[in-house]
């Protein structure tokens, strides 16, 4: 076995892992393989790995099948978005915000646009608020479909059938969003004070018809997997997030609600027209992998209800403050502010410091997955690898947001 290649220097994370392994073996820890330099194996579940759903790298310390320690390494998709904010005007920056969390780009735009509106002290027109809620909730369903689909696809053979169902229905939603904004994934649709286009003719009926079908489709997903023995055995009781973790690490979104904490910014920090809509915050009790799946499925149903209510209450009127040819260079007054918004993965918001010029002075993203990912060492250690894959899939990470 040719063993003499010049293997380049391991990087910091691997050195840290090897140092920890030496400490445990020095004190006699590790497994029962005596007389070996390392009792545990350090391996990279690297940036290119089918189960990490993106370019996340986990330096995993293994004792046979058991995961002893995990060191997440991120930055493989760092695209300098916060530095680019200083070179783009406020309008030019909207497409970049789309690409932070690329599975829910409409909600990301909403987070950014709300912060700038608060900075400028303007409020969008009422019709635009309703359109934003409709489009945002449609995006939430599509994002949950991808998240739950790829997570279940890793677990059981039935999961691959489920991911096919989910992507088939996601295409229906993307058709609707494409008719509204012209793009399938990167919409660039929201503006400061409203939305760029009004809903096309006949769109409301099409959307209402799809929302009528949606609950049946969601029942189809659940019928596939809910009573599947493999799926239940692999998800129940695994990777429990306690309420202390939520307080310590700032976990938000479905991962927090699955542990029984009713933290949903649409209710705890009402924005836009959510106070007028009635929907419940879906929570579950145990906070294990199955409950996170359960909360996401319930949230899809809630989003359907929200969209239907908004379609009924859709008022008439203009969709953008001022003329459609809005001034494309805005200069908000100096100052700084932060607005958090309920993204499918948690609290997503931008903190903008403006110095009165047309470029943001400093822009910081508060990304839910960045905070949720901090829990991995605590969550994955002590499980078998197969469970670690299930747990990391259920946390639902999007690396575009984590690496910014």
């Amino acid at each position: 076995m040719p063993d003499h290649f010049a293997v380049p220097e391991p990087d910091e994370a691997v050195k840290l892992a090897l140092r920890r392994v030496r400490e445990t073996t020095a004190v006699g820890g590790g497994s029962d393989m005596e007389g070996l330099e390392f009792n545990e194996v350090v391996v990279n579940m690297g940036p290119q790995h089918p189960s990490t759903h993106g370019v996340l790298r986990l330096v995993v310390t293994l004792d046979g099948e058991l995961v002893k320690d995990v060191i997440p390494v991120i930055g493989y998709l760092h695209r300098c978005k916060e530095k680019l904010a200083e070179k783009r005007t406020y309008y030019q920056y909207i497409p970049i915000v789309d690409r932070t969390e690329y599975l829910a780009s409409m909600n990301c735009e909403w987070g950014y646009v709300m912060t700038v509106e608060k900075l400028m002290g303007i409020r969008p027109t009422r019709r635009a608020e309703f359109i934003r809620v409709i489009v945002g909730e449609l995006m939430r369903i599509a994002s949950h479909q991808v998240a739950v689909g790829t997570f279940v696809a890793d677990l059981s053979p039935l999961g691959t059938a489920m991911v096919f169902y989910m992507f088939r229905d996601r295409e229906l939603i993307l058709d609707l969003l494409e008719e509204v904004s012209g793009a399938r994934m990167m919409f660039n649709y929201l503006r400061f004070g409203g939305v760029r286009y009004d809903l096309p003719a006949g769109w409301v009926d099409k959307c209402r018809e799809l929302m009528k079908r949606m609950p049946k489709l969601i029942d189809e997903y659940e019928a596939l997997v809910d009573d599947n023995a493999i799926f239940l055995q692999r998800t129940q009781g695994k990777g429990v997030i306690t309420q202390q973790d939520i307080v310590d690490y700032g976990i938000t979104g479905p991962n927090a609600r699955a542990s029984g904490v009713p933290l949903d910014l649409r209710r705890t920090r009402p924005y836009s027209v959510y106070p007028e809509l009635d929907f419940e915050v879906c929570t579950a009790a145990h906070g294990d992998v199955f409950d996170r799946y359960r909360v996401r499925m319930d949230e899809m149903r809630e989003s359907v209800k929200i969209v239907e209510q908004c379609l009924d209450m859709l008022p008439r009127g203009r969709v953008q403050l001022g003329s459609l040819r809005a001034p494309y260079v805005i200069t908000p007054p100096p100052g700084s502010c932060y607005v958090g918004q309920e993204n499918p993965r948690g609290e997503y918001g931008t903190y903008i410091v403006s110095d009165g010029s047309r470029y943001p002075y400093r822009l910081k993203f508060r990304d839910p997955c960045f905070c949720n990912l901090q829990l991995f060492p605590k969550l994955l250690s002590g499980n078998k690898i197969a469970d670690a894959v299930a747990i990391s899939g259920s946390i639902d990470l999007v690396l575009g947001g984590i690496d910014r």
Partner: protein
Amino acid sequence: MTLEIGTVDLTMDEIAGRLAAAFPVELSAVSVQEPDTVVAHLERTRLKDVARRLKELPQLAYETLNWIAGVDLGAQLESVYHVYSWRTNTYLELHVTVPRAKAELDTVTDVWPAADWHEREAWDMMGIRYLGHPDLRRILLKDDFVGHPLRKDYVDLAENHPHA
């Protein structure tokens, strides 16, 4: 303990008044930013014990750290702490300024464990060193990246682009 949100309902001015009373010396320029944030400047050397006492305030316990942002104010660097109080369901934004030459601050990871990665990111991007941090490495950039890119005076060096 099941977490409730917003059990204590105080108006923003009461919260600001209470905070100003609790930390007369350390906090300055306490102001209210509608609808839910108290903004305050914090003296650099008192960061650690203010953080600890903030977490234990009887009714205003700021138990969760939302995020830390490093901001370059030209002459000084600023580390903005954004903490959340579950009981009053409000935010507190602490601005801590640090001289540009000696950009060092005490770590708050022992008070809010969430600060671990946020401080590493502020170190990586802005170059604010957090003393006592368990594992202060670069988080987003390569280990051998030179400089801190989000500083206004960051010059794009060729050695940061081996694959230019």
